[in-house]
């Protein structure tokens, strides 16, 4: 499926090649085209982070994905949704938050590109569009770095329709092929960056694209197969999971919220009020559905007081067919961050795997209302339809 989409796109826009030794020169050119250049870089202590860099030399080119996704530049952990000034006896002066400055996010991995695509559909679609998200998103240009090979053994994007190469959602995408970067544009913004790079890029031989497709196909074999997510999705959607499963998983969970705080798709937020000396702001802050207070009401009633109920809610939201139908993909992009952080080893791939192992099976696959839920990397286990 990924290959088909890429072929279609390749017909629309030219594909370029960049000699690998020119990559920092290329980055330097991109840096002239934006107010802020965000890229993978090493912190003082050697951790890989996405942060603003001032020179191309600071950019890390061989890097595992950052534990904190660059999605945080699109949906920050804290941001004001409006501000106000209060004067005694007068109506408060309420101001929407100002426009944000432009950013290029360089080196974003395909899983995080898929997460932003999901968030775009979630925040900008539906009955109400989120104008705060819209303004911030509009100012971002995504220059993706395809993976081909897994960054670590937690990566499972091939099982969740998100990688190892982005099929859409980016402006420009680079794939390193030995001594050459394949450079693809998927938007007008991408095209502008190609112009900015000028003579550094030359048109790529179609053979290079074909070679890339062969490597992507091969990647499906090298990535960890962490279970048939589509099967878990169909089962959870059909209310086909036994209650005991959630009791068992919930009993192991510490409700620490780590999985949702590192998840690039998780977008739940709480609002806090900040006000001092007559000036105030409504701040939205990341929240986690694993926190006991997440659904606590003013009356003291809490519909999800216990972790098993919260665990079901979390897994259902990620995996249900409804999510797939509304946003065109699973609510997981296979980045593997929850695998890295969960202290109880009940990350999403393991949850999906446990759903499959719980021995439950729908009666009739042919009549399945969720048959459309499929992912490219599906691998069927023994005895599975």
């Amino acid at each position, binding site marked *: 499926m990924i290959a088909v989409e890429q072929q279609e796109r390749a017909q629309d826009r030219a594909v370029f090649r960049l000699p690998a030794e020119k990559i920092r020169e290329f980055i330097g050119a991109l840096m002239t085209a934006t107010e802020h250049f965000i890229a993978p870089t090493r912190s003082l202590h050697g951790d890989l982070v996405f942060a603003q860099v001032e020179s191309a030399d600071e950019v890390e080119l061989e890097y595992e994905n950052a534990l904190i996704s660059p999605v945080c530049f699109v949906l920050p952990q804290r941001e004001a*949704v*409006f501000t*106000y000034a*209060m004067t005694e*006896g*007068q*109506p*408060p002066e*309420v101001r*929407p938050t100002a426009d944000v400055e432009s950013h290029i996010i360089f080196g974003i991995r395909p899983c995080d590109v898929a997460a932003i695509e999901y968030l775009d559909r*979630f*925040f900008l679609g*539906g*009955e*109400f*569009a*989120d*104008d*705060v998200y819209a303004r911030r998103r509009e100012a971002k240009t995504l220059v993706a770095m395809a993976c081909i090979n897994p960054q670590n053994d937690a990566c499972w994007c091939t099982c969740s329709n998100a990688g190892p190469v982005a099929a859409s959602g980016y402006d420009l995408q680079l794939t390193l092929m030995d001594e050459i970067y394949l450079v693809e544009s998927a938007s007008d913004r991408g095209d502008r960056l190609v112009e900015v790079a000028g003579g550094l890029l030359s048109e790529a031989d179609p053979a290079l694209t074909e070679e890339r497709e062969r490597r992507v196909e091969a990647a499906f074999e090298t990535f960890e197969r962490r279970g048939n997510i589509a099967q878990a999705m169909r089962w959870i959607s059909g209310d086909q999971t036994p209650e005991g499963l959630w009791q068992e998983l919930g009993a192991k969970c510490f409700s620490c919220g780590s999985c949702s705080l590192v998840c690039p798709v998780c*977008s*739940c*937020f*709480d*609002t*806090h*009020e900040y*006000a001092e000396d007559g000036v*105030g702001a*409504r701040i*939205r802050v990341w*929240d986690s*559905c694993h926190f006991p207070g*997440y*659904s*606590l*009401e*003013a*009356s003291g*009633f809490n*519909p*999800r007081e216990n972790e098993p*109920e919260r665990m079901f*809610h979390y897994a*259902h*939201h990620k995996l*249900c067919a*409804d*999510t797939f139908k*509304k946003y065109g993909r699973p609510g997981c992009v296979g980045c593997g961050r929850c695998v890295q952080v969960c202290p109880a080893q009940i990350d999403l791939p393991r949850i999906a795997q446990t759903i499959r192992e719980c021995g439950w099976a729908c009666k009739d696959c042919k009549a399945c209302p969720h048959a459309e839920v499929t992912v490219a990397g599906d691998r069927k286990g023994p005895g599975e339809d």
Partner: protein
Amino acid sequence: MAHEGTYVPRTAQLVQSIEENSLERTFTFELLDGEPLRYNPGQFMLVTVFGAGEAPFTLCSMPGSDGLLRMTVRRYPGGRVTEALHEMQPGGHVGIRGPFGNGFPMEMLRGRDVLVVAGGIGMAPQRGLIEAILNDREQFGKLTVFYGMANPEQMLYDDLMQEWLERPEIDLFMTIDRPHPDWSGHVGLITTLFEDFEVDALMTSATVVGPPVMYRFVIKELENLSLNPEYIFLSLERRMSCGVGKCGHCAIKGTYVCIDGPVFSLTKYRQLDEE
């Protein structure tokens, strides 16, 4: 001015704050931009007290020609928004967003008998519905209201209740949970009002709003009356931070109480299966 963004409220002024009882007050707000607000009974607003925060409250009356918005709010100790509202003097300013949610499905009530079941502050959203039915009385069949409260001091809208008791076009039955020296009426949980109560099961719709614990028992009574679950409507409360289906708090299996509800048929409520 009115709609600058998803989260930016319109400014309104508190014109009246009436004490209903020791816990609850009814607030009347006037929007400063003067643009009238249209809404259905059962829809809710998000009210900002600047400096304190924002919280959802259901409108408790139908839009009148005066263009005023009324909400009855219970004060919760430690609740920054409700405490600040209860302390606010007329003339104070708040932010208002909304209306949000679906409200009661009037098309499923019209032409039918309507049984309104309200527990405690659940009378606030139900009051708007009852007013809407009374304003358009000939469009509906029999209107019966069951109103249960812990004790007579918790009664909302005393004068209105007296008026409804006297009006022939509405049958109001009230009950308190335990005997009380100031009460000569029916005593017992709201479910006891269903004893000897008869309905035309095929022609009756019911609406239920009250504390979560009440729902299970009232649903059982409505089923004993053989009402069609497609015609039983319950208003759910959930924590909310946005009202527009983005913050995630009110989601139940992909259904958002803030935009898909808060009113659900019993059939849908059962699918959500989270009480």
